């Protein structure tokens, strides 16, 4: 069912993005063919690659693995979406060849991970950008927009009615009912919650007094299990507001709010506007370590501020000789313009070019 849904979105996105007039049942054939023509230097290794980590990039990884395996037959690549923490642990323990993670390695994890890379270090490579949509379902109200302070007040339970002055101030023209707000959050722990609360803490610290964490810390509200549960709850219940990965918001046809960025503009969530925030991020790492610091208060015009950057954590040196071509091949495809474009269909935003070229160069330098 998911595949079909994705397929439908894929058709729409491909039509829009590539200007194709029609698309067949297998979209990857033309893309794969053109890629193997342009990038002749695809590393086709043999054997098995085991990776695990973030479930936020599960769909992206599945797409890349499929595309890579079409180019290079005879390879087996496993990506287990076991969670970021488990992925990093597996990388440190040596059971994962690379790890996917919702956050870069923490300072205390870095030396442990470096120890696995003989003569090199563990690199954080931003690879998948997952924008987080603010979704709502209010009968009679459309095109709502929120400033960070209003969002923080709603989710902290300080604003409880839809016709509250704070919401009215953000939406002077909207017809807001005097109904109670149901602020829906994830009842399971999730990188989306972590990222969303980080955004609230950074942009509206005075209204959001809870630290960021994967578990929802604010009192009250309504929990729903998994992204699918959140999307379904918002879709079926009047008076709800929540946050969810972009792909789920699109697939469920939810109304997405515009969010005010640091420049004071209310911005709609698009692949382009999310990419602008990433383009404005600063790199904290040295050399090829591309650990990013996202500025949630970005002053970049037209940037959508709530984005989640997920990383691949991989050794710069010291990979086993049989694994190296596989890692370089797969991640090289992922960091290519074509690999990133595949993601748009799945509800991720592609890396902006200036970041992507750095990631691509970093992948090429793996040895």
């Amino acid at each position, binding site marked *: 069912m998911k595949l079909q849904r994705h397929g439908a979105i894929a058709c729409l996105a491909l039509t829009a993005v590539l200007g194709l007039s029609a698309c067949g049942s297998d979209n990857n054939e033309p893309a794969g063919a053109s890629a193997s023509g342009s990038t002749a230097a695809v590393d086709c290794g043999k054997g098995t690659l085991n990776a695990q980590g973030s479930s936020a990039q599960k769909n992206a990884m599945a797409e890349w693995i499929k595309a890579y395996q079409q180019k290079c037959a005879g390879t087996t690549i496993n990506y287990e979406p076991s969670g970021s923490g488990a992925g990093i642990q597996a990388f440190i323990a040596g059971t994962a060849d690379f790890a996917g993670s919702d956050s870069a390695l923490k300072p205390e994890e870095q030396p442990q991970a470096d120890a696995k890379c003989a003569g090199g270090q563990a690199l954080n490579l931003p690879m998948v950008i997952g924008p987080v949509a603010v979704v709502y379902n209010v009968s009679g109200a459309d095109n709502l927009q929120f400033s960070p302070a209003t969002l923080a007040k709603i989710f902290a339970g300080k604003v409880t009615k839809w016709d509250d002055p704070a919401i009215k101030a953000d939406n002077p023209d909207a017809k807001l009912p005097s109904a109670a707000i149901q602020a829906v959050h994830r009842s399971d722990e999730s990188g989306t919650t972590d990222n969303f609360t980080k955004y609230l803490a950074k942009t509206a610290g005075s209204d959001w007094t809870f630290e960021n964490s994967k578990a929802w810390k604010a009192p009250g509200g309504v929990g729903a299990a998994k992204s699918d549960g959140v999307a379904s709850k918002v879709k079926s*219940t009047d008076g709800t507001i929540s946050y969810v990965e972009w792909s789920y918001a699109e697939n469920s046809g939810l109304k997405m709010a515009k969010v005010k960025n640091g420049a004071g503009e209310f911005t709609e969530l698009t692949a382009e506007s999310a990419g602008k925030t990433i383009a404005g991020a600063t790199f904290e790492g040295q050399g090829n370590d591309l650990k990013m610091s996202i500025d949630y208060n970005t002053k970049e015009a037209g940037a959508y501020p709530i984005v989640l950057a997920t990383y691949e954590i991989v050794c710069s040196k010291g990979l086993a000789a049989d694994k190296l071509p596989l890692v370089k091949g797969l991640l090289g495809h992922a960091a290519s313009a074509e690999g990133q474009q595949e993601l748009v269909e799945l509800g991720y935003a592609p890396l902006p070019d200036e970041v992507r070229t750095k990631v691509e160069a970093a992948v090429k330098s793996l040895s």
Partner: protein
Amino acid sequence: MGDTPQRSAHAGTGGTPVATSHERPAGASARVAERSGNPGRPDGGLGGGGGLPRARAFGAERAFRGLTLAAGSTVLIVIAAIAIFLIAKAVPALRANTESFWTFEGWFPNDNPPKFGIGALAFGTVLSSLLALLVAVPVALGIALYLSHYAPRRLGNSLGFLIDLLAAVPSVVFGLWGRDYFAGPVADLSAWLNKYFGWIPIFGEGPYGSSILLGSVVLAIMVLPIVTSLSREVFRQTPTANEEAALALGATRWEMIRTAVLPYGRPGVIAAVMLGLGRALGETIALALTLGSTYAISFNILEAGGNSIAANIANRFGEANDTGRGALIASGLVLFAITLIVNITARAIIYRRREFTESAA
């Protein structure tokens, strides 16, 4: 000679379902005595009746006794193993907990320092299960009585079949149905209850929807088939003599049910309700999908929120670290204890009621 009839009598009681076991202490001690008397049987056989030596030669008898003994002790071993596993995993997490395990309202065992408390979860578990029974039991007894005493035979059979079918629906389906379709009507009902019965504290302010009420009603539907089919069987077994005696004395059908069927069936009904309660307490995914997953103790059953131990485990184990898993296991231990208490209470009630009804009947 005195040995043989006693043994066969107890073999009979041991074989019948737990709910109908007679004279608990006597039966239990007799079974123990029988087991301990086993090796001494050859000696006793000399003084016994003529049938005994032949029985000793019959090896299958012993083999079967050994098999049933092994099956019986498996239960004990499994329960002991589960308890040991739970305790061993839970203790380190409980030590690491920096808040009171019993009173803290929240579940953040993955944080540093870990903080988690069982109070709100245990409260939600018990509250949702009791509410579910409150809704389900009257309906279930009504259905059971209709099927056993009022419905035409053919209709009764097919209706009973449908009820049993309800038991075969996976709980995740009930959960999804509750979450996606039933939440709306329940929210409307909640608003109505609050409007007209808002003066009762349990019918408080909204937001409505994913509330204890929704979870309980979904649970009630899941519990219904168990309670119904067991009670129906019990009611059917009412001795015809009792029923006809009541009718012969001029009782109407309702009076006959009240004087003959219900007293006879009471222990069975209590057993059925307790089985239903057991299912409700342990129900996981349906509640994980329908409850609002907040960590607060509130008697307002209409407000979105509420949580249960099993639902919390389902929601939180995916991203749990070592302490997180230990904390969830500790919560499992509490559920284990709650279930144990419920079962012991049920046994006690059944035992007491049984003596009463047997002397009455």
